[in-house]
């Protein structure tokens, strides 16, 4: 048997694609630099830590997928659309399979060079800037891109094999690539948009999960983001891409040579493409009518006198686009007239979208799950955020542990079962559920597929009670607590406000040593930062310091913030030392300026503001218009605050965490018309026990409405 890939022919096609391949390679490398610069400047702290941002890494590759891949395939097969060229290539003594395989191989090699060089440049840039890489995720992204590349090459090969003109070939390729996915996505969205307790189609068959078709995913990702580390999605896409590539081969083999310069061979695909052109104009109306069917008519939202012209206009536009495609592709009015009856397919598809998702959604949401059947459950990370956390990096270590822990609790099972009944009732009534911030519980009832119970973010219907009870059960699971309290795993880097990278790393190292010595309960008290933590015991420590870390574990990125206080004395001491060395003079100067200002205020209070502990002290608060009417200075208006600030400004600096209060100054500086830069400095002040006690009291009262009891302060 002759070689499938003919070396001589491969050399020639590879040479023909050289220009395009080199342009793709250089543009990708250029984009690499651009996006890397954005990455470095957008969030310098994250960038200096080397946190992996897949979005910035993937964006240029998506450009490659949707621009360079089609250009490359069209470049390689352009001869199919010219009779003279088609004759030349079909006359040479190679089988069609050889021509297809060899051409595909040349395309893949160029694309791989472009993609590979992008990866290499990216890796070099990261290494040059000392930024660590999550190699597993890095690999996953590239495997995803390679699979998507195969799929797009295959789709365009099919389109080109079935058409003899570039215009029709392009749009029929688009139809092959996206039309099934768009139909599925619209169907999926309309079916699942308000499902409370469901067995989603996406869980039944990968085909229904838009995330699983990597090449077409960006459509879906506009709404839901992309998970680049989903092995099932990769496998599914690979199988589908390979299938499409083989289908492309069959289409190429069957293609008549004389098709060159003839718009299309496949009447079915041409009809589908026409429908693709006619559908978008109907989509808005389809969605409106679907919502109407689902929730009843809302005259305020859409008055009938607007709806009817809207429907008519949409149909008219849709029909025009439908016919226009046929006219441009076939260039024959006769064919347009012949295609006109086929427009009914657009209307039929719209009707399908209006009714079928509604019926399907209604039918499948009415089956609640019973508590006895629930064997275990876990919390899904799919729906709580719009962009998956492994890309945005917003997932915390606690979230990571939560999403990867399987719970088994009879009380929780009962709650889930009740919630599912509640959801079914709400579904029957047609109540709308707000999906933003929705939590999903994946339930294992022993069946082949996992079921999902959605906990809408809407706090009506007593959901808040359910959530609290449910989360309490989860948090009391000892196995879960143990995992959360354990120090985060994987590749970890540290950052802290006011510290350099190397200082943060040193503090992080000491923190870890301190942390390992603590009990689980103590560790749990350190999770989170001051002022932002709602799910851990409120600390009474006046040391408002924290260390942040970015980590990569498996293919996921996470963040974590830990408090630094007397429980972690070595880390606290080191951090205070660094802060004092850098900021002591500045802080004192700022405090003295504030004290002086309180003695001799300016007429118009500026918008500067100061932090004391974790609390803001705005100049306005010390010297508002009412104060100005009654008192000569802010010092007279607020004597207690004046005394506290004066005492602090004269206090010595210390790195002793047990006799210390941290003090932060936040100032704002206009750096441009559109952005405001924040500069944060912090330092530790030595305070005596009396002052410390009152500051502790003040900090502890931060969430209350009570004023700080300055009257008891005797300085």
């Amino acid at each position, binding site marked *: 048997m*002759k070689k499938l890939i*003919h*070396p*001589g*022919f491969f*050399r*020639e096609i590879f*040479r*023909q694609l050289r220009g395009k391949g080199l342009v793709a390679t250089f543009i990708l490398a250029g984009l690499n630099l651009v996006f890397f610069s954005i990455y470095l400047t957008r969030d310098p702290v994250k960038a200096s830590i080397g946190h992996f941002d897949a979005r910035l890494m993937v964006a240029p590759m998506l450009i490659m997928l949707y621009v360079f891949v089609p250009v490359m395939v069209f470049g390689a097969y352009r001869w199919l659309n010219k*009779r*003279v*060229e*088609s*004759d*030349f290539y*079909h*006359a*040479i*003594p*190679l*089988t*069609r399979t*050889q021509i297809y395989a060899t051409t595909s191989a040349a395309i893949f090699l160029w694309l791989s060079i472009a993609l590979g060089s992008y990866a290499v440049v990216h890796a070099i840039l990261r290494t040059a800037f000392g930024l660590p890489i999550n190699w597993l995720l890095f690999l996953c992204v590239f495997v995803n891109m390679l699979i998507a590349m195969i799929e797009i090459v295959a789709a365009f090969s099919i389109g080109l094999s079935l058409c003899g003109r570039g215009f029709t070939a392009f749009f029929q390729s688009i139809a092959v690539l996206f039309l099934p996915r768009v139909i599925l996505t619209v169907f999926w969205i309309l079916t699942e948009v308000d499902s409370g307790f469901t067995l989603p189609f996406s869980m039944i068959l990968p085909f229904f999960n838009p995330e699983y078709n990597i090449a077409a995913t960006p459509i879906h990702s506009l709404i839901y983001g992309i998970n680049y580390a989903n092995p099932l999605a990769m496998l599914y896409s690979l199988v589908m891409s390979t299938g499409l590539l083989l289908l492309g081969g069959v289409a190429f*083999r069957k293609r*008549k*040579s*004389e098709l060159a310069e003839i718009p299309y061979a496949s009447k079915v695909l041409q009809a589908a493409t026409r429908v693709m052109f006619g559908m978008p104009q109907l989509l808005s109306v389809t969605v409106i009518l679907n919502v109407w069917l689902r929730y009843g008519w809302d005259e305020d939202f859409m008055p009938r006198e607007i709806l009817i012209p809207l429907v008519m206009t949409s149909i008219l536009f849709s029909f025009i686009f439908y016919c226009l495609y046929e006219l441009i592709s076939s260039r024959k009015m006769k064919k347009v007239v012949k295609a006109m009856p086929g427009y009914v397919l657009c209307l039929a598809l719209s009707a399908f979208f209006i009714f079928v998702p509604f019926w399907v959604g209604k039918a499948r949401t009415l089956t609640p799950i019973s508590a006895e059947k629930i064997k275990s459950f876990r919390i899904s990370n799919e729906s709580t955020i719009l962009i998956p956390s492994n890309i945005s990096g917003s997932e915390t270590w606690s979230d990571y542990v939560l999403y990867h822990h399987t719970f088994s609790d009879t009380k929780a099972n009962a709650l889930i079962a009740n919630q599912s009944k509640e959801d079914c009732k709400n579904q029957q009534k047609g109540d709308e559920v707000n999906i933003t911030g929705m939590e999903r519980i994946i339930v294992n009832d022993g069946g082949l597929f996992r079921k999902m119970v959605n906990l809408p973010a809407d706090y009506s219907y007593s959901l808040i009670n359910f959530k609290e009870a449910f989360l309490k059960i989860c948090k009391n699971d000892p196995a879960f607590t143990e995992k959360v309290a354990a120090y985060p795993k994987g590749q970890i880097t540290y950052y802290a406000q006011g510290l350099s990278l190397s200082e943060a790393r040193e503090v992080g190292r000491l923190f870890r040593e301190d942390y390992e010595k603590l009990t689980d309960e103590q560790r749990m008290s350190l999770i989170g930062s001051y002022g932002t933590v709602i799910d851990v015991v409120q600390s009474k420590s006046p040391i408002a310091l924290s260390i942040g870390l970015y980590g990569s574990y498996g293919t996921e990125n996470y963040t974590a913030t830990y408090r630094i206080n007397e429980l972690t004395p070595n880390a606290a001491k080191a951090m205070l030392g660094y802060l004092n060395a850098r900021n002591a003079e500045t802080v004192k100067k700022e405090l003295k300026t504030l004290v002086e200002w309180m003695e001799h205020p300016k007429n118009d209070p500026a918008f500067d503001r100061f932090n004391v502990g974790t609390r803001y002290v705005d100049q306005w608060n010390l010297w508002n218009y009412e104060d100005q009417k009654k008192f000569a200075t802010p010092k007279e208006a607020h004597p207690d605050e004046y005394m506290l600030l004066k005492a602090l400004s004269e206090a010595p600096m210390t790195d002793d965490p047990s006799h210390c209060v941290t003090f932060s100054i936040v100032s704002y500086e206009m750096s441009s018309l559109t952005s405001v830069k924040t500069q944060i400095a912090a330092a530790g002040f030595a305070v005596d026990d009396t002052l410390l006690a009152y500051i502790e009291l003040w900090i502890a009262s931060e969430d209350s409405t009570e004023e700080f009891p300055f009257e008891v302060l005797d300085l």
Partner: protein
Amino acid sequence: MITASFVTKRFDDTVALQKLNCTIPEGCVYGLVGSNGSGKSTLLRLISGIYRPEEGKITIDDQEVFDNPAVKNRIVFVPDELYFLPHANLRRMEQLYASVYEHFSLERFETLLKEFSLNPDKPLNTFSKGMRRQAATILALSCCADYILFDETFDGLDPVMRNLVKNLLYNEVMERKATAVVTSHSLRELEDTCDQLALLHKGGIIFESDVDHLKTSLFKVQIAFSDDYGRERFDGVEMLSYEKQGSVATMIVRGDRGETEAKLKALAPVLFEVLPLSLEEVFVYEMGQRGYEFSEVLKQEVK
């Protein structure tokens, strides 16, 4: 041997070839003549394996051509509209041809380059029409294929180059026993080139014959007698046409020339002259015999 059996080829509603049968023997120059749209190019594209027939089959030595590299390796096709790789020169074309055609001869390529005096490093898109055809001829002949298919072979070549190409074709046929199939809408073009000729009309071969036989079997006779005479005097002589002006009769006769001459001389004419016919004249008479109007079949020719 190339065999086309009941070959039908359609393009949408247009029938390009309708149940065409023909056999092209090895070691000859086979000419296909016909007006535009008669199906010449389609037949060549079918023979070269570019097209697949809707019905019937095309075989070379009993093997189907379409998608069969083993057979296609023995065929080289030079189309009427030439195509070269983008931005290519003859060297690059040679590299592709050498890699795909098993019998491509680099030695022959170099020899032909010298004969045609073409610069192999010059981009082909800077070549004139005639030079491009020369380049295509060089590449085709370097493939050392058993079957060389030329569509509108001499289009764009000056007389010197035409002769050179013709000679090269003869050499291919004589020395390598190759078979050349050449097409033209001009009968004169093929007259002194082909061993066999076939006339295509409306997707079918309406006439096929050996050129030498055609030329020798049909001839013009001018004859006169001292007495009055009629057509019946020539009974026993196969006449395709007969005209008499005064005492001189002019007739187109088919048959063995020696026998016919002897037969007519025996009638003791006062004037007797045998004139050779051009191939075109032969075709006019043969077509007439078959009920075709020659000017209809070869429209280009009469213009």
